[in-house]
C-alpha cells in the first residue's frame, strides 16, 4: 500500500459566503437599491487559506467546534461546492455518509428507493440490479422491501441508507459524526464493514466533536477553528492541543 499518495489535496482553499447586509425581501426593493448602486453585502469566510493532504488508506479525523468550517470542507471534497479561492483535488469516488437516505421518498417501496438512491450515487440500472441482493441482505430488511418507506422506523430507514451507500464501494468515505444507525449490533456491523474497506485501501474522513472517537479511530487529524487550520498531525497530538485550548477558553 502506498501510504504517501494523496487522494485529497487542498491548496490554499478559501470559501466566502456573502450575506446581504440588509434584507431585501422583494425583487423590486433589490432592483431599486441596485439601480442606486447601494447593494451592500457582508462577507464571511467559512474557510480561509486551508491547505493539507489526506493520503490513501488512512483514517483522517477533522475536529472543531460548530461553525468552524467542517461541513463546508466536506462539501468541497464531495464536489457539492467549489472553493471561492484555491484548489481542491480529489482522486477516486467519494461517497458521503452524511445524511443516510437523503434521497429516499416515503411513498416508494424499499426496493424502489434502493434503485433511486443508487442512481443518485451515479449508478446505472444494470449496476444496481447486480447490487440489489447484497444491499437487501446487508440491511436485513428482506420482509419489508416491498413496503413503502413511510411504514419504516427511522432506524430501518437509516439502515437501508447505509446499506446502499456502503455498497457503492467508495474510494473515499466521508463520515459526519459516527453512525447512530439502528441498534448496537447493526452499528458494530457497519464499523466492521468500514474497517474492511480501509484494509482494502479506501480512505476514510471522519468528522466529529467527539475527541475520543477521533483518537481511537484516526491516525492523523486536523483541527479547524473559525475557518482556519489550527493544527494537523497525529490524531493524539491534535486532540491534545485541541483539548488544552478548550480548557483555556
Amino acid at each position, binding site marked *: 500500500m502506498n501510504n504517501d499518495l494523496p487522494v485529497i489535496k487542498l491548496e490554499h482553499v478559501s470559501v466566502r459566503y456573502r450575506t446581504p447586509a440588509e434584507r431585501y425581501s422583494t425583487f423590486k426593493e433589490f432592483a431599486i437599491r441596485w439601480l442606486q448602486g447601494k447593494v451592500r453585502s457582508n462577507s464571511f469566510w467559512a474557510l480561509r487559506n486551508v491547505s493539507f493532504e489526506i493520503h490513501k488508506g488512512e483514517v483522517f479525523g477533522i475536529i472543531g467546534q460548530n461553525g468552524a468550517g467542517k461541513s463546508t470542507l466536506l462539501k468541497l471534497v*464531495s464536489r457539492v461546492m*467549489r472553493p471561492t479561492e484555491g484548489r481542491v483535488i480529489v482522486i477516486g469516488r467519494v461517497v458521503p455518509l452524511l445524511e443516510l437516505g437523503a434521497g429516499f421518498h416515503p411513498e416508494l417501496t424499499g426496493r*424502489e428507493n434502493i434503485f433511486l438512491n443508487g442512481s443518485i450515487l451515479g449508478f446505472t440500472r444494470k449496476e444496481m440490479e447486480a447490487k440489489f441482493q447484497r444491499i437487501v441482505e446487508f440491511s436485513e430488511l428482506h420482509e419489508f422491501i416491498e413496503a413503502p418507506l413511510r411504514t419504516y422506523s427511522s432506524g430501518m430507514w437509516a439502515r437501508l441508507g447505509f446499506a446502499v451507500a456502503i455498497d457503492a464501494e467508495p474510494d473515499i468515505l466521508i463520515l459526519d459524526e459516527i453512525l447512530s444507525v439502528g441498534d448496537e449490533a447493526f452499528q458494530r456491523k457497519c464499523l466492521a464493514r468500514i474497517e474492511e474497506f480501509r484494509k482494502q485501501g*479506501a480512505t476514510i474522513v471522519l468528522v466529529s466533536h467527539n475527541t475520543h472517537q477521533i483518537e481511537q479511530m484516526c491516525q492523523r487529524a486536523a483541527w479547524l477553528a473559525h475557518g482556519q487550520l489550527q493544527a494537523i498531525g497525529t490524531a493524539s497530538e491534535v486532540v491534545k492541543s485541541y483539548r488544552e485550548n478548550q480548557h483555556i477558553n
Partner: protein
Amino acid sequence: MKATSALELYYDSASRGSPPLEELREVIHYRNLILQLTRRDVMTRYKRSVLGIAWTMLNPLGMMVVLTIAFSHIFRFETEYGYPAYVLSGLLAWNFFSQTTTAAMVNLVWGGGLLHRIYIPRTSFALAAIATGLVNLTLALIPLVFINLITGVPIRAAILFLPIPMLLIAAFALGVGLLISTFAVYYPDVAEMYGIALYGWMYLTPVIYPVNILPESIRFWITLLNPMYYFLEIYRAPIYYGRLPTLDLLIPAIIIALVTLLVGWIVFTNKSDEFSYRI
C-alpha cells in the same frame, strides 16, 4: 476499487472546462438518475389516490367539461371541429408548459436539499420535471383521442407528426425552466411572480379561445411576439386540424425552441457553481 466513470476518478476544482459541455457530459453519465427521478415523480403523484395514474387523464377532461359548459353558454366560439377537442388540446399543451417550467423551478429552489449533500448534475431536477411532463402529456393523448372520436374530429395520418411539436414544446419549456430557476435561486420572489405571469400569458395565448376572435390589431402582436402561439398551433395541427403544421409556424417554433434551450442551458450551467452558496 470500482469507478463507473473517468469523470469521477479525478476531480480538480481548478480545471473547469466549459460548464455547458461539462454539464452535458455529467447528465449523460447520470442518465439513470433522471430516469429514476421521473419514475418517482410519475409514480408518487397519485400513489395514495384510488384512481391513481388515471388522474393524469381525468384532470384535463374535467377542465374541458367545465370550460365547454361555461363557454358554450357565454360565448360561442367558432372552431373548425367543435370546441371540446379544441380546448382540450390547447389545455394539454399549455398545462404541460406551465406545469413543467414551474416544477423545474420549485424542485431546484425548495427541493435543493439533495444538492447540498451529494454531487448530482444541477440540471437533473429540471430535466426530470420535463420528462415527467412528457409522460403525462403522452398519457393524456388517450382522453384526447377519445374526445376527438366522440365529437367527430377527424384523426388522420398527420397525427404521427405529433411527437415533433411535443418535443419542441419540451425544449422550449426546459430553456424557460432553467432561466427562471436561475433567477429564482437569487430572488425567491420570482417564483410568485412567475405564477402570475403564467396566468396572464395564458390569456394572451389562444388556449381556450380561437385566435380569430381577437381584434386585428391585438392578433397581429400576439401572433408575432408570443412564442406559445406558435407551439400551440403546431401542436393542434396534427391532432385537431388533422394536417401537418405550415412552415411559417413550424420554422419559427423550431428556432424559438432551440435558441431558448441553448440560452437557458448556458445561463444556468454558468451560474450553477454559485447555487450551493445560495440555495
